[in-house]
C-alpha cells in the first residue's frame, strides 16, 4: 500500500515536471513580454459603430507573447496534448514552421493557451498592447501602414499584396519596424488574432447572445482600415478554415 501511494506521488511529481517543462519550452520559443497596466484609451469614436464609444479603461499588468503562435510551436503542442492540429498544418506554404499557425477555431486557440496556463487576450489587453497608453492607431504608432511596417493586403479590401514580400503569411517577427513600444511583434497585420470572451456591444454591454467571437489586428489580406487597432471582426467561433486567422496568449502573473 505504501509503495502504491509512493508510485502515485512520483507519477504526479513527474506530471508536474513535464508540464512545467513544456511550459518553459514554449516560453523559450515565444517569450512573454511585460505590459504595464493602468488607464488607457479604449475604443474609437471615429471607427465603425461597434468601436464606439471611446472610453478610458483601467487594466492590470499582464504578459503577452512576443510573437503570434507559430506552426512549430503548435505542432509541439499537438504532440504533447493529443489535440487536433490546424486545418492547414500540411499546407505547403501556410504550414511552414516559422509562419503563424492558421486554420483554427476559437476553441482550438483557447485550449492551446490554457494548456500552457495562459489565456487568449481580452479585447482590452489587445488594445493596450497594440496602441499603448495614448490610443495609437497601429502597433508602431499612427503612421499609415506600409510594406516596411507590416504584412498587409491591397488598398482595396480584401486581397493579398506582395509589396511587403509575402503572398500570404510571413514568418512571425518579420516586421521589426512594426513592433510595439515593448517589442511585441505583428500585433498589427500578418494574421487576425482570436480574442478571449464573446462579441458584445460597448454601448449596452450586450453580448449578442453569445453568438460570435472577436478577432483583432487585421491580416495579410487587409487594408489600413481593418488593420486599425480598434477594428473588431466578429466571427463564428467554430469556423476553422480561415487562412488568415491565428492567435497568441497572455498571462497575468501576481
Amino acid at each position: 500500500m505504501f509503495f502504491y501511494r509512493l508510485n502515485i506521488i512520483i507519477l504526479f511529481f513527474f506530471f508536474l515536471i513535464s508540464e512545467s517543462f513544456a511550459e518553459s519550452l514554449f516560453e523559450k520559443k515565444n517569450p512573454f513580454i511585460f505590459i504595464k497596466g493602468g488607464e488607457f484609451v479604449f475604443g474609437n469614436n471615429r471607427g465603425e459603430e461597434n468601436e464606439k464609444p471611446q472610453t478610458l479603461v483601467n487594466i492590470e499588468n499582464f504578459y503577452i507573447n512576443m510573437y503570434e503562435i507559430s506552426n512549430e510551436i503548435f505542432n509541439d503542442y499537438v504532440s504533447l496534448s493529443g489535440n487536433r492540429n490546424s486545418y492547414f498544418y500540411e499546407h505547403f506554404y501556410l504550414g511552414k514552421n516559422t509562419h503563424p499557425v492558421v486554420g483554427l477555431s476559437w476553441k482550438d486557440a483557447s485550449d492551446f493557451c490554457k494548456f500552457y496556463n495562459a489565456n487568449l487576450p481580452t479585447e482590452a489587453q489587445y488594445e493596450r498592447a497594440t496602441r499603448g497608453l495614448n490610443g495609437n492607431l497601429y502597433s508602431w504608432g499612427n503612421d499609415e501602414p506600409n510594406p516596411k511596417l507590416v504584412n498587409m493586403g491591397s488598398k482595396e479590401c480584401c486581397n493579398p499584396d506582395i509589396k511587403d514580400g509575402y503572398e500570404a503569411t510571413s514568418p512571425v517577427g518579420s516586421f521589426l519596424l512594426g513592433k510595439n513600444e515593448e517589442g511585441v511583434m505583428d500585433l498589427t497585420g500578418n494574421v487576425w488574432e482570436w480574442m478571449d470572451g464573446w462579441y458584445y456591444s460597448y454601448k449596452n454591454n450586450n453580448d449578442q447572445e453569445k453568438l460570435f467571437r472577436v478577432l483583432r489586428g487585421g491580416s495579410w489580406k487587409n487594408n489600413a482600415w481593418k488593420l486599425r487597432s480598434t477594428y473588431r471582426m466578429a466571427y463564428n467561433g467554430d469556423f476553422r478554415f480561415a487562412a488568415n486567422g491565428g492567435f497568441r496568449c497572455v498571462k497575468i502573473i501576481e
Partner: protein
Amino acid sequence: MKIFFKLFLLLFFANNIILAKPTIVDSSYSYEILKTNITYPSGLTEKKGDLLISDLSNGKIYSYNNQNNLEIYYEGLPFGFDVMGYPTGPYKIKFYNDKLYISQGWADINRLEDHIYDHAFLELEKNITVITNDLWNPYDFSFYENDIYLIDSGKNNITKIDKNNNFFELIFFDKIIQKQEDMQVLSPTEFSNTEPYLTDSVPTGIAINNDGTIYVSIFGGFPYFKGSGKILQINDGINGNKESSILIENLNSPVDIEFLSDGNLAILEMGTFDYEKEFAQKDGRLLIYNFKKKKLNEILKKLDRPQTILQRKNGDIVLSELSGNIYIVSNYK
C-alpha cells in the same frame, strides 16, 4: 504516450469505418458492401463485365471481376493529399471505345513540380497518353458521339474535346450570389453591408442524355452553404448553348450525377459542411430524379463522403465512398 494516443485514434476511426452504414429510405432498394480493402475508392467504370475502381491512396486502378477477385489493372498514377488535406489522384475513370479515360488530380504538398500527369486528362490504352494538362482541376467527364465533355472544377467550366483533339470551352459557370443573411451566420461585421457576396459556382458531375442535353451538378463554393447545391440543365449544350436552367435546387454539395437505364437521373450528395468539422461524415445521400413525375426521391442516406455513382449493365448502382466502402445498390421494383 503519443504512440498510444495515435493507436487509439486509429482504432477509433477503424471502428467508425466498420460501423458507418448507410440507411435505406426507399424500401424497394437494398444494398451490399463490396469487400475490397481499397482505402480511398473514387472513380468507377465497367469494362467487359468487370468493375474498375481507382484508389486515391496509391494511384492504382483495380479490376474487380465476377469471381470476386480484385487485381491491379494499372498502377503508377500520382496520388497524395491536396493542400486542404483531401486525397487526390485518379478522381474519375471511364471506359469508352476500348480506352480508359482518367481525370487526374494530384496537388500533393510534396509533389514534383511540373509533372505531366499533374491535373491532367489522360487516355489509357496500352500506354498513357496525356490529352491535356492545361487544367486546374479536371473532375468529371462524359461522352457524346465520340466527343468528350470535361468538367474543370478549378476553372469552373466545361471543355469539349472533339475526336480530332480540338478543344472548345463550352460553358463557364459564373459565381453565385449569396444571401446576406446566410453570410451573416459567419460574421455580422464582415458581411453586413448591402453588397452581394459571391461564391464560386463549382461544377462537379456531368451527364448527357440522348438528345444532347447536358446536366451538371453544381457543388456551390466555399463555405458551402446548406442547400446551395443544384443541378443545371443546358438544352443543346453540346452545340454550345450557354443558357442553363435549374432542374433541382436546395441540394447539399452534389458531387456526381449519372443517367440510369430508365432515363432518370441519379444524384450523389456529399452532404452538409460544418464550420468546424469540414464535410459532415455520414451525411451523404443517393437521390433519383424522376423526369416524368418531376419528383426527387431519396434512396439512401448517411453515406460517408461519397464520390462516384455508376450504373452497371445489370442495373445495379455502384457507389464509392471516401470511408473506403463501395456499395452495390439493387432495386427490386
